[in-house]
């Protein structure tokens, strides 16, 4: 099956316009309202990075669990991981907005705050960026290795089964390494970038919850891209079982998201220790309460209730609708995690919208370019037959 995508002119124009909108918003925002801009900058950066990391995790998980059904789609998550280097650059730029985001970076606050002094060996500016560099280096290296193996597989002679199998085993090995690295680094990244905003607060499940959120939303966007490509006439073999499997991933992960969310909330609510409850106390105030409930509704309740019956989870339109809710859900979730600790004001205006649009344009462009650089369906993948003739059993 030979299939390759081409980027249309309109796609390029639209994405480039969005990027320009985003850049302008950022520039104006930094000049007029830096605190709010940097907070939103962090949200959208993390948002699209989490999608890319979720896709990478999906890719690696398919490899180690020897799942055959998804083999034909593997170019899509691979293309999504191409965004990681861009995220790295943007994250390093946070250096200029550090004081607007993180209370611990404020040198004046440290002498009066015992906890900040205690955390100083971990939460200090040089180490923060050193860690960030290490995370990104590991992610970029490992995902590009996986991508390279995958491309190499395409170029191998299909009759050379031995070579293909050795590449296959290699990608499994690197997937294992990636998952291990991902688990540790992404957890720490979540602690670093998000949890340390509320610097006096801590929760052990926080990292895990963010890992699952990234997996859930990564898979949703992945499914969305597959559907878009299908509408464009690619992946002609997609049947209801493929849809079912994608929907099951979204369904199960949204349950896991709900489970982690509830575990964190319930244990803190029950334990009733002020050190911890302050986090929810802030997010339970007038106005924020609505956001608090919208988060659960769009990330858990809607996917759960809609995708519960078999019939709806085999319907592309329904799944797409659910994914749209999840796209909003991840934004709300991050908004609720970042904003109360930074600006503290519940606002959605041109800065928020402009930045989000800009990054959405960039993400689409990067993924589109990366998709068009390789065959859409890996022709030599050992599980390709299994994937194309996928039956639910």
């Amino acid at each position, binding site marked *: 099956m030979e299939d390759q995508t081409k980027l249309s002119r309109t796609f390029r124009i639209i994405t480039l316009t969005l990027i320009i909108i985003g850049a302008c918003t950022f520039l104006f925002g930094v000049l007029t309202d830096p605190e709010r801009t940097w907070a939103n900058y962090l949200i959208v950066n993390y948002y699209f990075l989490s999608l890319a990391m979720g896709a990478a995790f999906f890719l690696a998980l398919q490899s180690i669990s020897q799942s055959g059904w998804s083999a034909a789609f593997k170019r899509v998550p691979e293309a999504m991981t191409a965004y990681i280097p861009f995220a790295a650059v943007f994250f390093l730029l946070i250096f200029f907005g550090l004081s607007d985001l993180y209370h611990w970076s404020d040198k004046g606050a440290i002498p009066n705050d015992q906890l900040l002094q205690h955390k100083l060996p971990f939460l200090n500016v040089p180490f923060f960026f050193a860690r960030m560099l290490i995370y990104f280096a590991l992610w970029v290296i490992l995902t590009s290795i996986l991508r390279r193996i995958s491309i190499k597989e395409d170029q191998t002679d299909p009759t050379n089964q031995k070579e293909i199998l050795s590449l296959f085993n290699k990608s499994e090995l690197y997937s294992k390494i990636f998952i291990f690295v991902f688990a540790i680094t992404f957890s720490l990244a979540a602690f670093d970038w998000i949890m340390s905003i509320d610097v006096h607060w801590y929760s052990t499940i926080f990292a895990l919850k963010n890992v699952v959120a990234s997996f859930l939303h990564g898979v949703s966007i992945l499914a969305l891209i597959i559907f878009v490509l299908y509408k464009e006439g690619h992946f002609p073999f997609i049947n209801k079982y493929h849809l079912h499997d994608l929907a099951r991933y979204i369904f199960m992960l949204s349950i896991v998201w709900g489970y982690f969310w509830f575990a964190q909330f319930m244990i803190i609510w029950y334990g*009733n220790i*002020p*050190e911890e409850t302050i986090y929810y106390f802030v997010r339970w105030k007038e106005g924020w309460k609505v956001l608090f409930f919208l988060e659960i509704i769009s990330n858990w309740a809607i996917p759960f209730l809609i995708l519960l019956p078999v019939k709806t989870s085999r319907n592309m339109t329904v799944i797409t609708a659910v994914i749209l809710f999840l796209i909003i859900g991840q934004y709300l979730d991050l908004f609720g995690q970042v904003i109360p600790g930074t600006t503290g004001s519940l606002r959605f205006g041109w800065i928020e919208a402009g930045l989000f649009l800009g990054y959405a344009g960039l993400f689409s462009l990067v993924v589109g370019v990366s998709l068009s650089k390789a065959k859409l369906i890996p022709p030599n993948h050992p599980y390709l037959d299994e994937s194309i003739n996928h039956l639910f059993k």
Partner: protein
Amino acid sequence: MKYDGFHWGLAIDLNLCVGCNSCVIACQAENNIPVVGKEEVRRRRIMHWIKIDRYYSDTPDDPKVYFQPITCQHCDNAPCENVCPVSATNHSSEGLNQMTYNRCIGTKYCINNCPYKVRRFNWFRYTNNKAFDFNTASDLGKMVLNPDVTVRERGVVEKCSFCVQRIQEKKLQAKLENRTLRDNEIKTACMQACPAGAIIFGNLNDRNSKVSGIFENPRRYHLLEELHTLPSVGYLTKVWNDEESKS
């Protein structure tokens, strides 16, 4: 949680406490607390509802000693109440953390979840048991028992009740005499026995009560306040007058 009528509280002034243990004995006599013997105490199974902790500071040669009577703190957000599966311990409308012995099945979860570890468990049957021949094994010994207080069975949890039998008695008396309760009318056994007057019991809802006055004292603190258990027992911190003793 708001308390409409009474909100019982206890104030302990650590400056006054000399660690004489009178309160421990008074409580034991009042509340029919079994004597369990050396061996059980060695195994960390004391039954006292009030005990006196000692802490030391400075050098071992010339230590400073701190006494701290510890009893059930009657927390308004009591961690022990949440976790009892059978509702054997819950909160009264007067702020008491109460214990229903009949309902207790002895899961000991409340003991674990009490940060002050003031709950006691009946590890064995202490009455009519020759292995614990102290005060409740013989007919003569049993004559010391207080008829107003239940004798607890094996396998149930017990703890300080703020001498609820005395509270009820005085409340009833006031009612019969058709008057309101006077401050200081109710005396818990420990308060009654304290020679230094370090323990004060009373109604926290009454602004003019003695205990409320002590709670206003800037020296007042609660034990493990950071856990937000909202204890009804307040301590007045110990103050040393180092300068004077040196000179």
